[in-house]
């Protein structure tokens, strides 16, 4: 350690742009602090009381001045708002084709699952220069996945998928923190993010225990948990076929329609009665508490893989949009 650290690493594509805004606000803060401090010091000396009976003239105020120092801060914060929001808005949606990694938070560890089935705990290996989208859920309380070097964080909620994305642009090992208080060993829910060259990442994926891919795991759970006995691929069972469902428009018994996404698939597993597909009876039991969030993620991945092909899904959405 050399002296006192004052800046975290910049290791993602957005880190630099966030820092620029950070420096801008810092500059504004410094400017106004110095301005106020020096004016106060100047007045304190210049207008110090020279005799006990001194009575200064009353000054009521000045409208032009009030307008001036309302307008200037308004302009400055307007710039900050637009700047900060644009940056945030741009970064709120992952670019198409980002590779996806699943994260499950649990008191007090992070479980990471790569699409090829490689699993790790409290570590996250990612390839350099490739956008990565994290889909995250918690098994218990609220956690928060925070990578300071990437300038990103997002709460990991129980019962709901949250996602965020980043594109690492610097090799190295960086801190991973839980930034939402989650109980006794909150401070121990830390790990590291390891950015490696893409080919090294491929090698890493192949190394270690050669497990099944995430879809394969999902398919296995689909069979083991008995899903496949009702959800027959041809739709002849008591439950709708799941082939081609993901990304498609689903019609419900109450007349509503929705696009089948991760949240819908998850809800249908844990509280199947909430949204019943038109033409079917609410006979499915809830799997809440029987499947872990990791297993549900595997199932979601499997149902995605038998869903609409991506191009079709896009076209379909565009059609819906036109209507």
């Amino acid at each position, binding site marked *: 350690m050399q002296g*006192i*650290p*004052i*800046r*975290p690493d910049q290791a993602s594509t957005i880190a630099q*742009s966030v820092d620029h*805004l*950070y420096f801008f*606000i810092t500059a*504004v*803060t410094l400017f*106004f*602090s110095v301005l*106020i*401090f020096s004016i*106060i010091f100047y*007045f*304190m000396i210049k*207008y*110090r*009381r020279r005799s006990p009976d001194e*009575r*200064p003239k*009353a000054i*009521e*105020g000045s409208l032009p*001045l*009030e307008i001036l*120092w*309302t307008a200037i*801060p308004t302009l400055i*914060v307007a710039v900050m*708002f637009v*700047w*900060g*929001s644009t940056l*945030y808005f741009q970064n*709120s949606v992952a670019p198409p084709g980002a590779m996806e990694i699943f994260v499950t938070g649990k*008191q007090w560890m992070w479980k990471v699952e790569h699409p090829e089935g490689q699993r790790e705990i409290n570590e996250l290996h990612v390839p350099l220069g490739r956008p990565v989208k994290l889909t995250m859920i918690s098994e*218990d*309380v*609220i956690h928060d996945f925070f990578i300071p070097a990437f*300038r*990103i*964080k*997002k*709460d990991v*909620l*129980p*019962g709901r998928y949250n996602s965020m994305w980043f594109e690492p642009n610097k090799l190295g090992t960086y801190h991973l923190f839980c*930034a*939402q*208080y*989650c109980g*006794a*060993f*909150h*401070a*121990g829910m830390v790990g590291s993010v390891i950015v490696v060259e893409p080919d090294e990442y491929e090698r890493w994926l192949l190394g270690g225990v050669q497990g099944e891919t995430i879809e394969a795991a999902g398919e296995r759970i689909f069979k083991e948990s008995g899903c496949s006995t009702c959800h027959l691929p041809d739709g002849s069972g008591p439950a709708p076929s799941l082939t081609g469902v993901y990304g498609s428009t689903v019609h419900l018994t109450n007349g509503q329609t929705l696009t089948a996404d991760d949240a819908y698939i998850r809800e249908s597993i844990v509280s199947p009665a*909430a949204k019943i597909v038109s033409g079917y009876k609410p006979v499915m039991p809830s799997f809440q508490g029987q499947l872990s969030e990791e297993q549900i993620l595997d199932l979601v991945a499997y149902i995605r893989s038998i869903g609409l092909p991506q191009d079709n899904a896009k076209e379909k959405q565009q059609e819906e949009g036109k209507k």
Partner: protein
Amino acid sequence: MSTATLEPRVQSPRNYLNADYGWKSWLFTVDHKRIALLYMVSITFFFVIGGFFAFLMRLHLIEPQGALVQPETYNKLFTLHGVIMIFFFLIPSIPAVLGNFLVPLMIGARDLAFPKLNLLSWYIYIVGGLFTLYSAIAGGVDTGWTFYTPYSSTYSNTQVTAVAVGVFITGFSSILTGLNFIVTIHKMRAPGLTWYRLPLFLWSIYATSIIMILGTPVLAITIFLLALEHLFHVGIFSPQLGGDPLLFQHLFWFYSHPAVYIMILPAMGVISEIIACFSRKRIFGYKIVGFSSVAIAVLGFLVWGHHMFVTGQSVYAGLIFSFLSFLVAIPSAIKVFNWTSTLYKGSISYEAPMLYALGFIGLFTMGGLTGMFLASIATDVHLNGTYFVVAHFHYIMVGGAVMGYLGGLHFWWPKISGRKYPNGWAMLSAAIIFIGFNLTFFPQFVLGYLGMPRRYAFYPAEFQVLNVMSSAGASILGVGYLIPLIYFIWSMRYGPIAEANPWGATGLEWHTQSPPPTENFEHIPVVTEEAYAYSAEEEALRV
């Protein structure tokens, strides 16, 4: 204006302090001034406890692996530090102590509109405090003062219910105090005391009361529901049954963000009084400063979502809340500019209250400006939940609100106690607090930017240097807070007798004797002048 009673104390010492004796005369009093003193003693007690917890935390954090306690204990320390400091010290500090003492005096009334209700508020506060102390003794609570579900409702097996009940009960104390102030300011002003003649302290107390009555009930019901969840697992804030943890956060922050303004607005009012008095000038832009208090109170209700930028709140709601959060910065900036301009061509003297007031402006400016990092979503994503947030709100709440409270205490102490305190020591303590404070909390800005999350019982070694600096500053700060405690207690017995108006201040409270008689004024005064009539012309008119 009524004539000040300036008879020698030896002959006519009758005042609210010696009007009656014995514990019953205190515990059953309905005199707002005595109730203010009851509050003062109780919040000082809680401040010492909360401060002690903070001291232990800073001591613990000297070493990366934690020097003192187990992580579980550390979690309880910061939770109780937050709960006690916020609900049992900061929120009642200026309103319930200085506000209670001064509101009737400043408006020329004999008491608040509902004196019995006022006493009831104190008892409610004490009952809430006892629940909280019980929870601390019975094993503590480890949810953080924010009580986020589902951790607090389902997973924490500490004394969540006791502390929730404590906070719930104390909420009603705050509600009733706010109600009392609003009715009193509306209905009990002395003849001639129009809204635009009110001291700015009353404007800010009024704005504070609005937040207290509109925000606190939402906290009360939220905490109540939380306690039900913890006891019966009803699940509207927990996902097991389909409830939503973010719903809790929405309801919680609907109060808890405006609560920050409950702490800072009265301090701003105190600062306006002090600056006017010690520069012998009317506050520059009186009306604008007054209305900016109300603007802060109203806007403060619209910004709570900035605590939830990274929770998975909708992107669009985030944009709205970010925009509104920036808007709150503007009335705060206006206030700072107006205070600074008040000094222009003034006659500035440097007594202890003025040092506290100037310290307030400095620290509040820093605290307010660093708030912009957190209002801007892109930077907040990085800084949310880190030590940057901790540093920011301590600059506002400790650098701002506590500085304001101490400044006000120094300013009105002669009126409250009838005694003077040693000015040299007071100025020294103001300087020590200012230095100690900055040393404690400035490093935390850097820590936050580096990415150190808050509420960590142990941390990576590279953060150690800054943490040690912070802990060192905390020990200086602790000394700074001890000194006033000692000389205030000393002055109650040994301090020189204070005259009715030791600072040469305007305002009705200075026109009655020190300490005031139980009924405040012999005759209800008639007000014929604006607030802060310090100029020679206005002075001449008065005589």
